[in-house]
């Protein structure tokens, strides 16, 4: 005996440290001896795709193929601080710092090129594809490589710093605008509840995620799939089973997380509405992608069998107990 239900969950999430806390990202860009460009940044790759995004932002700003860019990351002796890979802040905050550093670096390049090309001014100098040239007289040109070779001992480099705008909340009233920017999403789930075994099977999911601008749609879809899978475990399986302060499910044979077989193909929708303060309009999605899933699933369970589960995980046993209580007219909070 199976019942089908549908539910949706919505969320909005403020990225970055927020609440007046100083939120600073820095980056440094340097012309390397071989004419390639080194970007030095403290942003940490933890599997979320930060390095790829940083390459893309650097490459786009410098108008230079990523083949000619070296990323030097995760070594505090070589680079300035970019804050933590947390709060879904690397794309927006460190992305901005890289963009600013690249722009400052291009200004430096124009100044050095002005001298090397014996020009009066930096006006009309374009930086593109590893070359600096005068737009209306392209024969006046010097490549990054030539420039690097001529700078005996002089390093051409520039730094960039991005300080996010965050406002501390009123400590009395809790009112204010603690975060900027916010990321929005919505998830709709259709599922089946077996009213005898209490097993929940997700049938279909449509998941819409606002991203500002999708710098890398594949990575965003990866984040959405990952957020859903993580939430699926959180809602249906993951149970520490704490008994008098002791964790009883202390290994992965007991603390169950979903396998590939429990996951379904999501219908992901990427919503783009560029954020004016963001690098190319892009906002962070790392944490937001998990948030609307649990309410969507629990709402769909309610739609299917008429019971509200208020403590996670919604195990088959808990669900059966709730269904039996609701039949007997008992008002019990399940949790």
């Amino acid at each position, binding site marked *: *005996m199976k019942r089908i239900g549908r539910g949706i969950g919505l969320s909005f999430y403020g990225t970055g440290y927020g609440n007046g806390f100083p939120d600073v990202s820095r980056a440094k860009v340097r012309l390397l001896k071989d004419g390639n460009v080194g970007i030095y940044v403290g942003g940490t790759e933890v599997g979320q795709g930060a390095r790829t995004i940083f390459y893309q932002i650097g490459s786009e700003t410098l108008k230079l193929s990523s083949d000619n860019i070296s990323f030097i990351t995760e070594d505090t002796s070589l680079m300035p601080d970019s804050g933590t890979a947390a709060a879904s802040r690397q794309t927006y905050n460190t992305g901005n710092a890289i963009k600013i550093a690249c722009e400052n670096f291009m200004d430096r390049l124009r100044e050095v090129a002005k001298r090397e090309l014996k020009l009066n001014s930096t006006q009309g100098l374009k930086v593109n594809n590893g070359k600096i040239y005068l737009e209306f007289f392209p024969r006046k040109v010097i490549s990054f490589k030539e420039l690097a070779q001529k700078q005996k001992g002089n390093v051409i480099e520039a730094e960039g710093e991005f300080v996010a705008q965050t406002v501390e909340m009123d400590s009395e009233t809790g009112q204010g605008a603690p975060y900027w920017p916010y990321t929005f999403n919505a998830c709709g789930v259709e599922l089946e509840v*077996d009213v*005898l*075994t*209490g*097993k929940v099977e997700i049938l279909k999911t449509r998941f819409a995620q606002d991203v500002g601008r999708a710098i890398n749609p594949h990575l965003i879809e990866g984040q959405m799939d990952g957020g859903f899978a993580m939430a699926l475990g959180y809602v249906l*399986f993951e149970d520490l089973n704490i008994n008098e302060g002791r964790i009883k499910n202390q290994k992965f*044979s007991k603390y*169950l997380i*979903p*396998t*590939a*077989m*429990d996951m379904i193909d999501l219908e992901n929708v990427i919503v783009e509405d560029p954020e004016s303060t963001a690098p190319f309009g892009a906002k962070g999605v790392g944490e937001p992608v998990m948030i609307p899933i649990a309410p969507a699933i629990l709402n769909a369970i309610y739609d299917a069998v008429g019971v509200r589960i208020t403590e996670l995980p919604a*195990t*088959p*046993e808990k669900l*059966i*107990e709730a269904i*039996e209580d609701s039949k007997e007219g008992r008002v019990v909070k399940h949790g």
Partner: protein
Amino acid sequence: MIVHRGKTIEEVIELLAKYKDSKIIAGGTDVILDIKDNKIFPEALIDISSIEELKGIELKGDFIEIGAGTTFTEIAEDEIFEKNLHGLKKACKLIGSPQIRNRGTVGGNIVNGSPAADSIPPLLCLESTLIFESLEGIRKVKLEDYLKSKYRIKEHELLTKIRFKNPEGLLNFIKLAIRKALAISRMSIATLIELDEEEKVKDIKVASGSLGRYPMRELEVEEFLLGTILGEYTVDEAVNILQNAMEKRLKGRPTLPYKKRAVKSLLKEALNQRIRSSRRVIS
């Protein structure tokens, strides 16, 4: 700890007689965990994983013999279990993950003795016989009796074969687990059903996993269903009988209310087969 790799059954039973405190290792999917968790401290490990005579599935007249060292993957992929014996294939396919199924053996599943061992309920329906060998000779025991502790494997014995008659009926297996892979059965039901010309139950075997201290035949359910037509009323009544049996067996267990309700789904699904016996044609 000494580890011996046996090459023949003969060599292994001699080693078993030599080392009083030894443990047999085949796939190691249970033994290794027990050693790592400091649950067992054997003096010697006797590895039987490379003994060819313990592997494979053989048709001998009306009987099928499965070597105790046959892996779950080998059972699941053997075409002998494609037709009426599909329930055994299904049970083996639902165990663990591909890695575990490639290592774990049916013999290990039986002697490890978990109430949730997935291969046991189908083998119970088939009225399997276990064949043990030791220096004292050969011992045969019905799987059903074996599980009732008294006939369990002795220190110096090696389980070599599982043997059963190729039945006329259709074998089915249903498992309930929290997730779809790598999950231990919460409970399981296997059925072997043969219908006559009038769709009446000519022969039936029902076995359960995790509904007691060990997997077992559900004789009261079998008795009730014999000679009936598997309609809505009879199936509901069979569920009642099983629930009452569970009530006696699992009294006081906190999992009983849930299991009682969920078993309805499992037994119904296991009995829901209108397909007549389709015994594999043996050429």
